[in-house]
């Protein structure tokens, strides 16, 4: 813990330098002279040997999302956003993966030896599985994003962590829910399933059986190790491409039922308009440039690789385009790695900044042809005027513009 306290302050102080991170570069040593040696860590400072700690110079951290602090006055944890601006590959490190809770929650301290998952309801054979039981069954490992319904850019948001940080991507390992359901035998009358966690509110959401049989998985592994407590240790239900709330953490019970069960989380999904209800369910195609992004600074004109992430609840991303002139011309971006279904894919576009004020943005299309819209397009669809008061109905997957000023500073295009 010795180094922990200053970390946050150091982060704040170094925020500007980190954010403008293009200005790195040490002075070259004189010819023939050995370069200055860095100080050495002798032995351990923060558990480097047993459980590798990162460099003290790498300080990026999660932050509370929106106005509610985590923990709050009750000790409840609410929503915490990942520093997307610092994520360099498709995988969000487990320690930085965003997390959210239904109404604020204490963190269940689950003993995996005591924990079981019970599957019952409209099945031929109800079954209870221990965590070890699940590890005996055929496994899958898949990359999947999770995104919170509240992941929405606003005028007040400055960084991409604030605009898009309630989404993360990890490698999940576990058992397909369909494997378990086949083991239990699904009755023909089962149309929905209700998943329940072990937190105090025992989050319960109704989901279609069709989704369960398609690609839901019960993950015990995350990024090569056990799922982190904040992400549901020891078992988390993955519902690829659905809103974050369905990805039930601390999963302990699944009940197959014949109708939408209308428990608390379902109640939270009610809407007057079926179109909005549909847009708050499976996540639409979305992309954002993370570098350069809000609050960073380009040190001068010249070459920059623009990069960011794209994802969709409808499948794999098929195409990403980048505009560097405020949306007039769109250029095809390259993928870094192969896009996978319901997973972040990383895109890049080579760019020479001429030093003039401009606006950069990205948009994507997924494998089933859904396209990421601008807010203007969305407003037009709903017959609304596009102005500061317009709020995107359903989960917001609109294009995020970043303004670049002549001095190289990058700001939120919605501000």
């Amino acid at each position: 813990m010795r180094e922990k306290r200053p970390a946050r302050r150091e982060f704040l102080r170094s925020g500007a330098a980190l954010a403008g991170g293009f200005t790195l570069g040490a002075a070259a040593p004189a010819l023939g002279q050995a370069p200055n040696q860095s100080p050495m860590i002798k032995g351990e400072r923060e558990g480097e040997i047993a459980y590798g700690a990162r460099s003290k110079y790498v300080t990026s951290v999660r932050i509370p999302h929106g106005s509610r602090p985590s923990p709050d006055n009750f000790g409840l944890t609410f929503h915490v956003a990942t520093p997307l601006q610092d994520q360099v590959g498709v995988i969000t490190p487990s320690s930085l993966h965003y997390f959210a809770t239904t109404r604020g929650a204490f963190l269940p301290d689950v003993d995996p030896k005591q924990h079981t998952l019970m599957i019952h309801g409209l099945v031929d054979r109800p079954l209870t599985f221990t965590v070890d039981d699940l590890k005996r069954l055929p496994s899958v490992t898949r990359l999947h994003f999770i995104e919170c319904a509240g992941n929405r850019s606003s005028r007040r948001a400055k960084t991409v962590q604030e605009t898009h940080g309630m989404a993360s991507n990890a490698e999940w390992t576990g058992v397909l829910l369909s494997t378990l359901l086949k083991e239990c035998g699904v009755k023909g009358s089962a149309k929905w399933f209700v998943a329940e966690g072990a937190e105090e509110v025992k989050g319960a959401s109704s989901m279609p059986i069709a989704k369960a049989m398609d690609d839901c998985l019960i993950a015990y592994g995350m990024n090569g190790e056990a799922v982190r407590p904040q992400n549901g240790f020891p078992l988390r239900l993955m519902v690829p491409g659905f809103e974050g709330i369905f990805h039930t953490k601390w999963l302990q019970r699944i009940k197959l039922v014949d109708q939408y069960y209308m428990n608390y989380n379902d109640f939270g999904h009610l809407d007057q308009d079926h179109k909005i209800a549909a847009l708050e369910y499976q996540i639409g195609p979305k992309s954002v440039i993370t570098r350069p992004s809000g609050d960073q600074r380009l040190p001068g004109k010249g070459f920059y690789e623009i990069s960011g992430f794209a994802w969709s609840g409808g499948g794999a991303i098929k195409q990403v385009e980048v505009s560097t002139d405020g949306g007039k011309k769109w250029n095809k971006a390259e993928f870094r790695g192969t896009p996978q279904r319901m997973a972040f894919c990383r895109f890049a576009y080579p760019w020479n900044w001429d030093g003039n004020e401009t606006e950069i943005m990205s948009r994507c299309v997924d494998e089933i042809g859904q396209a990421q819209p601008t807010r203007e397009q969305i407003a037009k669809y709903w017959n609304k005027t596009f102005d500061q008061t317009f709020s995107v109905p359903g989960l917001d997957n609109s294009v995020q513009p970043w303004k670049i000023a002549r001095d190289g500073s990058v700001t939120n295009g919605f501000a």
Partner: protein
Amino acid sequence: MGSRSVLPIAFAWLMGISALAQGPTYGIGRAPTTEEIRARDISIGPTGQELPPGKGSATEGATVYRTKGCAGCHGATGIGGTAPILKSRTPTNPDVWARGRILALRAPFATTVWDYINRGMPLNREGTLTPDEVYALTAFLLFINGVIPEDQVLDQQNLAKVKMPLGDKYASLPDWKPRTPRLKGYPY
């Protein structure tokens, strides 16, 4: 030699697999007892079929609300605490949707209210309320929102029959299918 002797074996093996398709493939997992399932199953659906025996009225619920500490977070009257409000600020608005996102007002079924109180309240002491107390609190919340009269007793039989103000005035979710757009006709 192979093919002649392997084929019948492969055929028999395939038959075996298809015969197993209706039964468990791996035989992993333990069958819970009926009692175990009943003890763990706290999901109360719209028909109320899982509700335990018990009963309570708003009058009793008002007492439970005070003695169990509900007022500490939700305010003495269901408004004014630090936790979400339990009573509409605009109870007379003819548009139910405009009365606010109040559980005991906007829930389409009274079972939703019962289920939530039972599974999620009071904070950090979940699972300590008796069924009678949950019936009473449900009645109390429905009463302060003008849904039922103060003296109505809710129980295992009549809870699911309470006529909620929202009725069926809410949009159903899409009939989800894999590999389909999130909203048909949505151009994006």
